[in-house]
């Protein structure tokens, strides 16, 4: 199947390349966005690398300090904590939103009466801005709030604690609302993927006597490969740039216990006014995102080859 596709697709490309002169309009469509992009995206990104090698308070001119910022990062306990928290965030937030989103998509894929309502209900949190989400959840977590009332109702009042102010629970208390929102989003991606699976495949598997678990394992999941790549990229990027919900719920506190790399970068830059050091953190985030995404893409391509 793949072989036929590649041979048929190669010939027309070759023919086109030989015959067509590049239309100026086409060149403009490539070059103009590239120019705009290079001014508004690539240039600041490169500048960020430069700033990470300087000491800069945002007012005086930046002073070149070489790798000092990176050396300091290596010994910075808050940075290490933020890095660990980001990994926890990646695993818990990423993993659970994939599992939850996939589970919900499986449950809600069949067209039944009222299924639209449930899909809409699960998707609703995605519509709210994260800051609004944070406000809602803050009411939930506040002392004597809904969370505490619920626990008291089921006789678990010994568990009650200041959820967002306890360093033991703050990070997890923030992951929950982030998940609450992300699951609906991931569900929609998977629903689209599930819809694209040819029902004949399931039909054939059923004829061969595959039970529903085997059909899920050997038909559905392999067929979702394309969607998985999208979901993974979305999750990794969303995890590494998660900021707004943490900032609006805890600001990385109490004493850095729910600090992520992104919140640490922000507070270093705009509260402590150490823009050079913050740029170094930003570079680390960038490298991490690139490593995870590239790592996955390389593996994915190797599997296809």
């Amino acid at each position, binding site marked *: 199947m793949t072989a036929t596709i590649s041979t048929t697709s190669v010939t027309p490309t070759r023919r086109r390349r030989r015959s067509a002169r590049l239309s100026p309009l086409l060149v403009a469509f490539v070059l*103009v966005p590239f*120019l*705009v992009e290079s*001014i*508004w995206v690539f*240039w*600041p990104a490169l*500048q960020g690398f430069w700033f990470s090698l300087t*000491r*800069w*308070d*945002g*007012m*005086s001119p930046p002073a070149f300090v070489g790798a000092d910022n990176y050396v*300091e990062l290596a010994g910075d*306990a808050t940075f290490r904590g933020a890095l660990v928290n980001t990994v926890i965030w990646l695993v818990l937030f990423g993993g659970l939103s994939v599992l939850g989103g996939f589970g919900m998509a499986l449950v809600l894929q069949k067209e039944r009466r009222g299924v639209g309502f449930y899909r809409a209900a699960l998707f609703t949190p995605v519509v709210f801005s994260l800051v609004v989400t944070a406000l809602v959840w803050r009411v939930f*977590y*506040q*002392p*004597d709030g809904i969370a505490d009332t619920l626990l008291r109702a089921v006789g678990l009042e010994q568990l009650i604690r*200041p*959820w*967002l*102010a*306890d*360093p033991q629970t703050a990070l997890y208390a923030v992951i929950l609302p982030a998940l609450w929102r992300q699951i609906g989003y991931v569900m929609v991606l998977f629903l689209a993927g599930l819809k694209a699976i040819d029902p004949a495949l399931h039909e054939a598997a059923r004829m061969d006597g595959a039970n529903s678990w085997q059909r899920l394992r050997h038909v559905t999941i392999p067929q979702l490969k394309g969607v998985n790549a999208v979901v993974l990229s979305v999750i990794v990027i969303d995890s590494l740039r998660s900021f707004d919900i943490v900032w609006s719920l805890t*600001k990385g*506190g*109490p*004493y*850095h216990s729910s600090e992520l790399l992104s919140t640490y970068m922000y*507070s270093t830059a*705009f*509260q*402590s*006014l*150490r823009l050079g*050091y913050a740029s170094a953190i930003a570079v680390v985030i960038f490298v991490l995102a690139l490593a995870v995404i590239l790592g996955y893409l390389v593996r994915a391509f190797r599997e296809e080859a």
Partner: protein
Amino acid sequence: MSDFDPGRRRFLGHLGLAGLGALGAGSLLSACASSASGPTTGNGSGAVTIQSNLSSPQAKAAMEKLIESFNAQGKGTASLNTVASETFRTQLPTYLTSANPPDLYTWYAGSVANDYASRNLLLDVSDVWKSLGDYPQSLWTLSTDGSGKQVFVPMNNYWWGFFYRKSNFAKWGVQEPKTWTDFLALCETLKSKGVPPIGIGLGDTPWVASAWFDYLNIRINGAPFHRELLAGKQRFDDPRVKAVFTRWREALPYFDPKGKAYPFQEATTALLAGKTGMFLIGTFFADAAPKDALGDLDFFRFPIIDPAVPLAEEAPTDGFFASAKTANPTGTKALLTYLSSVEAQEAYVKASSGIVLPANPKARASDSPLVVKGKAMLDEAKELTQFFNRDSSDALQPTADTALTKFIDKPDQIDAILREWQAAAEKVFKG
């Protein structure tokens, strides 16, 4: 369609130009800043733009009224631009360093203003001060930068204290304490009555804890040591700083445990509802208090710990400074002169929530008993301090937030906390 085409080309042309401009300026940040800095005056006679962070409804309305009456006088025109506080705080350095900055800013006196002044970003307003001869010496000193010129014009100040409801204190049968021993005894009494004695709100506003640090430090070690510490001339792991926490620890069992989880606004609600006994806070908390509760509020000064230490109080001063790059220094100074006048300050005090003291000594403050008592307390003080971030810098504040919330949670780890605080502070001072 043919109409559309040149328009689009012109649009793209603009984009290209903007881009070149950005490259020319050498930094995209500064280019963004200059385009974000709002209306520009251009020539020397244009309207003075005043960038204000007074965004609470009453204060905003009060400022609008002031600008209106200034414009009506015909000595110049001004336009007010109110920005949310947090945005203002993070944008202020960008405003001041941009090529075409707003002319006048609401902000704080003391070390924050001096820091900008030392970078030559603030306008010399010594001319304005010539007409402010009757302002108290303390405010004059506060408004003078390291090189001896005035860079700040104060509008008003307010005070911090232990606020409580008179009716509740009467109900519990307790009196205002004068000394630390009295204070701890009062806490014990309230605790025995089932009331968390000391309210606090660290949830979203961990900086409230800095008031405790400031006050304990100026009561135990005195205001000069406090200022030196915040200026980086003393160390946070000094035994004298540890003494502050030893005292604080005596009061820790009396703090409202829920205070860790909610912001100071909710701690205010808790105090007004009688769910906590008292609350160390600045008068601004009353902005959120219902008017009928105001009459029932009273406060006492932070208890005396060592009678030998000269009395100091926290009295953060708010006011204005102007950009050194203003295109219209004459108009800006005219507006500053107006804002420092008796008329303007009385109008502001009347229109705002009212628990502030005008900087102009001739201006009448509100004559509520609370304000009279507050003014008397500040007049009695030998020294005035501002507040942690105003005596040090906004950049140092997060280090205090971390150290102090951690101490409240884990007082046993105080030695480690102070070491970490010193390390974090050194980084800030280093830049």
